[in-house]
């Protein structure tokens, strides 16, 4: 069965690109536009992996990450955080709150795909 990827970002262009990239590589994809929506889809869509932007309306990516990690039943969900700011304080915070990886925009699509595969335990 295809693995599920939840894309959480409020920027239309990057969502389009990511959605296209993930679907093309055989993942089942859903998109959340803000932090609140993301937390709902985490329950209803049951994703295996989150592509989570930091700067989001309503709830920040950090909050979403923290909420997920607080829930014992969601520990298996992999979280890749994306940010445009790229400051080391954010990287430290993201990893401290339970993110599995932290990627700074702009990133290479191949590099991102490799990371997703690795986290989902799929060999190349």
């Amino acid at each position: 069965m295809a693995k599920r990827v939840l894309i959480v970002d409020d920027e239309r262009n990057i969502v389009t690109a990511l959605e296209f990239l993930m679907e093309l590589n055989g993942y089942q994809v859903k998109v959340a536009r803000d932090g609140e929506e993301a937390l709902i889809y985490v329950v209803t869509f049951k994703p295996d992996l989150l592509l989570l932007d930091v700067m989001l309306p309503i709830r920040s990516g950090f909050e979403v990450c923290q909420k997920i990690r607080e829930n014992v039943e969601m520990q298996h969900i992999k979280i890749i955080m994306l940010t445009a700011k790229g400051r080391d304080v954010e990287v430290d915070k993201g990893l401290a709150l339970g993110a599995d990886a932290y990627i700074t925009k702009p990133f290479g699509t191949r590099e991102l795909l490799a990371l997703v595969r690795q986290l989902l335990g799929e060999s190349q």
Partner: protein
Amino acid sequence: MSPRLKYLLAVAGLFGFVIALIVAGSLAAWSSMAAQDRVTLARVVYANLNLLVFCTLALLAGLGWFVHLFFKAYIYAASVVREETRTILTANPSHRIDLAGAFEIQQVVHSINTLADRYQALQSEEEARIREAKADVEAEKNRLAALMSELTQSVLVCNGEGRILLYNNSAWQLFSQGAARRSSNGAGGLVGLGRSIFGIIDRNLIVHALDNIHHRIAQGDANPVSQFVTTSKGGQLVRGQMAPVRDQRPAITGFVLTMEDVTRRVERSSRRDILLRSLTEQTRSALANIRAAVETILDYPEMAPDRRNQFTQMIQEETLRLGAQLDHTLTEFAEDVKTAWLLEDMLGGDLVAALRRGFENKLEITTRVEELDEPLWLNVDSYAIVQAMTYIMSRLKSDRGVDDVSFKLKAAGRLARLDMLWHGPAIDAETLRGWEQQPSIVDGAGSPLTLQEVVERHGGEVWCSADRESQTAYLRLLLPVTEPEPGWSEPAAEVSRPEFYDFDLYHQPGQSPEWDQRLLAELTYTVFDTETTGLSPAEGDEIISIGAVRIVNGRLLRHEVFDQLINPDRPITEASIRIHGMTPQMLRGQPTIEQALPLFYQFAEDTVLVGHNAAFDMRFFQIKQAQTGLAFTQPVLDTLLLSAAAHPNQAEHSLEAIARRLGVPVIGRHTALGDAIVTGEVFLKLIPLLIEQGIRTLKDAREAAQKTYYARIKY
């Protein structure tokens, strides 16, 4: 009348008298004699003439010897006793006179020594009382001193003429950086008591600032201050503020300068400008290329596939380049980006201490420190952080009942993790977000800034989490660490403070050519000594070391010293190595006299030079004048000559002999600085002795020195 003249007169008088007596007696006898008796006598005398002459001469010699003994035992001994008694009275109360001369003189000496014992006892008692009284004043002074030395800002106080009366360590460091770079041991610093402020700061600037203050006073400004920005000689950018010292308005008797090195701040802000400009330029050009490529593809859909590929590749290249440039720029300017807000450098431990004080005093929270990485420097606005965290703590206490927290501060690369831990569950993200957005006001006091704003301005992050196993929650404040600003982070090794403070200098007259009229006790001196490769400057002997110390207001300032070894560029003789102990290895790599002499010149500027047998050293300086262009034109005093003027009857005036006579301990001789210090102390002891003899002004001293015998020796 000198004892020698007295002695000659006495001998001459006595001889004259005896000869006159013999001649008169002989004449009287001759005139009363019968004629044949005269013939007989003449024959007898003629026959025994040799014996008679011998007897007369023996009588005269015996008389002369007696007079000599008498003079030595009474008159000369008495004048030695007189001089030494004066030494006891004015310079060295512990001095005692040796028993010499006649029994009566010895008895007088004994009585004087007994009297001196009592006098000394009385004096030390009096001194003890004076010391007690002074201690209070001193304590007051020390409080001020401590306060000033704690200030990170540089403070200089000057009198109306611009002479430095007081300064703190920070000021010394700020202005000695440039000088220290030139001289390995930091000698030749420009800040010193009694030195001119114009050596440090442009005279026009000071005059301008004073004018501003006068203007403001005239306008009725109650608190007239003047601001300025200047460059120090070391190249730092200095922002300063001048405030007047006023006894009775509107007269200004002096001014206080507070200064700060803003070089780094200004550098940062100009680097930020550069960053912004380069980012803009790079982004513009890359975007232009991308836009051109994209628009071409959109406008010409029927383009051939390989051509189209070319454009797509171009877009990819441009985006890659843009990303790489951005990364590069941000790494290079990382320091400048994060310190956009002007903050102070602070030790992490101090920030934790400030937080604990705030929590304990304001909220009655029990606090502990669990772990502290030291030293960890943070660039923070400590006030804003303490206010914001105190607000969060107040909410923790009121909403969650937390009244006991502990702190951890750990370094993680370029970041510092400041954790506040408590027993219980973590605050959930929404609640914390709510708290973060509230102004930091507790009980009506605090700051209008929110924690979110404070964290943002520091380029930090904050979050709350919990360790499930230990049931411990923590609030983590992530802050960037910084390199401490050079200069004030390391407390100066100097601990001796009192020499930095001397308010009597307020009454120091300004710099003028009328040095001669000034009293010896009030002048500023540079006491110096040199070591040389030999005794013949004219034959190529060179200076290998200059040491100097300053005397201001009758006090030897042991911390305002000049101490410089000098490479003579010529072999050193074994004989001189035995005196000064300096080997060629020790002098290798030291500056040459051409480099060192200007530093000493600067150190000695505007002061009277004092040396022991100074003519010798001055001759060396004079020979170097052609090379360095430096002429030491200030007045020079010689302790050798002054000692001879103060003690004309003492035979020895070597530095050691004078020091012994005046009760100055001789330590560290035959190093230039050691000798300079001994010379300085001797000089201070000589001043009251000279005053006793009516030698009060610089002119008196120079004239007295010229009169003494030694002045005629020329090097």
